């Protein structure tokens, strides 16, 4: 068990910078989720940690061993679950789970015991003599997990382990993984592009985009205080509404309507000295009412059963989404509504740097 860390890690593939000066420390027993859109460098970062890719610059630290750059994957004492599961097709489930132990010359009696334990904790006892081709997707995923937990490595690396499961199984396995991590008291580094997985599973989320780390923090903090426009739009479903506006005094003008900012935030925006800003507000913090300051036209209403998403067009053409409860009145499409926002729930970003301006 132990910590792992990226220290100024850069990965270049010829001219493409896949990971750009990544600094990230993952504490012992922490569940860290590396989150980002495809191609953001999160998988490359994980693969560098595993030793499957060389580091172009910087260093990887695992446990209390320092620079691991010259340590081969097989000697890094990590376990990894692949998106494809990468089960050995010619071996039975038992031999698949046993493989990491055999590689490390664990004696037979101990091996049998560890395999039985791992199989039992993932409910695979009945499948031990089957081959991967005879298993369902969910069962294969469990075998891949069992092969990882059969040892007690410094850390577990997971590369989108749930993405090949159907939606129902994914939700179930998500909870089981959290439980597993707590039971093992293990360090997990978990790569995903699914922000729901990130929000529900991680102790902390590290969000990456275009090779750069955007923000690291506990899920709620990242949700409440996104560090930049990218994070604001990436976390949350439906995503945060971001509209461009102009700073006029202590207010922000959006589509001809002034949104007054609370005192401290107004002061911060003034201090930042930017003329154009991006105003962000989450769909649940917008309200549809007769009194609201911002006129908008309803484009479409999506019903999800427990809530509705009202997609509106502002007078200047920008689109916003309003989340309403299913028992609230549903505005008709093409009708004009008035929107209001809770001033305490406004997020302001510098339009030029896209960075958050904080009160």
């Amino acid at each position: 068990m132990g910590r792992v860390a990226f220290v100024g890690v850069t990965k270049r593939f010829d001219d493409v910078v896949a990971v750009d000066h990544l600094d990230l420390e993952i504490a012992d027993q922490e569940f860290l989720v590396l989150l980002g859109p495809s191609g953001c460098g999160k998988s490359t970062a994980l693969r560098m940690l595993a030793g499957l890719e060389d580091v172009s610059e910087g260093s990887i630290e695992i446990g209390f061993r320092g620079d691991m750059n010259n340590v081969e994957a097989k000697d890094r004492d990590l376990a990894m679950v692949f998106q494809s599961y990468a089960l050995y097709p010619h071996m039975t489930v038992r031999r698949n789970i046993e493989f990491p132990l055999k590689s490390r010359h664990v004696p037979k009696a101990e091996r049998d015991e560890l395999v039985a334990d791992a199989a039992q904790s993932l409910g695979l006892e009945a499948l031990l003599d089957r081959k991967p081709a005879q298993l369902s997707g969910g069962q294969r995923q469990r075998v891949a997990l069992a092969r990882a937990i059969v040892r007690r490595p410094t850390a577990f690396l997971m590369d989108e382990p749930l993405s090949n499961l159907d939606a129902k199984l994914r939700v179930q396995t998500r909870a089981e993984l959290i439980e597993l991590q707590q039971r093992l008291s293990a360090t997990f580094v978990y790569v995903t592009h699914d922000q729901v997985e990130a929000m529900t599973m991680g102790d902390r989320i590290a969000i990456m985009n275009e090779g750069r780390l955007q923000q690291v923090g506990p899920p709620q903090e990242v949700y409440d205080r996104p560090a930049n426009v990218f994070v604001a739009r990436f976390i949350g479903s439906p995503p945060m509404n971001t509209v461009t506006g102009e700073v006029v005094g202590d207010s922000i003008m959006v589509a001809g309507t002034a949104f007054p900012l609370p005192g401290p935030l107004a002061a911060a925006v003034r201090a930042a000295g930017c003329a154009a800003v991006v105003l962000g507000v989450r769909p649940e913090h917008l309200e549809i009412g007769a009194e609201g300051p911002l006129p908008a036209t309803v484009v479409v209403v999506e019903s999800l059963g427990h809530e509705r998403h009202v997609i509106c067009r502002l007078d200047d053409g920008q689109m916003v989404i309003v989340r309403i409860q299913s028992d609230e009145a549903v505005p008709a499409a093409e009708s004009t509504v008035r929107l209001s926002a809770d001033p305490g729930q406004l997020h302001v970003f510098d339009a030029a740097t896209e960075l958050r301006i904080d009160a």
Partner: protein
Amino acid sequence: MISRQRRAREMSLAYFLLLPSLAIFALFVFYPFFKNFYLGLFRTPPFPGLPKTYVGFDQYSEVLSSSEFLNSLRTTIAFAIMTVPTGIVLGLGLAVLAHRQLRGVGIYRTIFSSTVATSVAVASVIFGTLFNPVVGLLPWLGIDPRPPILDNPDLALPAVAIVTIWQTLGLTFILMSSGLQTIPEDLYEAARVDGATPTRRFWQVTLPLLSPTIFFAVVVGSIFAFQTFGQIDLLTQGGPLKRTNVLTYFIVTSLRQQNNDGKAAVLAVALFSITLVLTLIQVRVLERRVHYA
């Protein structure tokens, strides 16, 4: 439901479309095959001009139990044992070496597969020169090859085997390389993270997953080995002391030099049976093989 009339119409169309290939097969495969079997039932007279005599299966049992045939069969099997495993080990070795992302590896792949473009005749001439007791490799190295390799009863067959291994190496290399490419890269990555050394990865991942390819190469290689003719004809003519008298060469000499078409026909049927058995094994095993999902 398809009506009976329509089905009949479709069937007759199917047979009509099959007709050309059926005609070609009948003319060049089925007719010669049965005619050859039939020829084996007649003994060729010792002097030309005399009538053939029908002897039924006597000639079959006679020829197939003769020491001449058994020696030839033994030579052929020895030849297959010399060429097939060695060729596969070498081809696999080169394929594993060339199966990596390195700058310039394409040049090596081209070199390793180049013998595909070499004919048996060219290979025989090259090695015939190398084995030559006057201008060959050994005298150049200062070793006096006496008797010359191709005239040495103990070395002639291994020498022809070397030519064959070299000539088929390109094909084996290509087969093994394409086999390697079907093994998903993430299995190797998983094995690396699982702590497997390169040797263990080879024995536990590469070799088992390549076994269908290796099996195919063994069967096809054996069939090729049993049909070897060109290099024997060009380098040793079955000698010295008939030590390189493989089946195909034996058939040809029976026919051309002894003009004994009855005996040659029997030998041809024997060779056909061996090849048929090898092919059936191949088909059966490949059919039963578990396909990895």
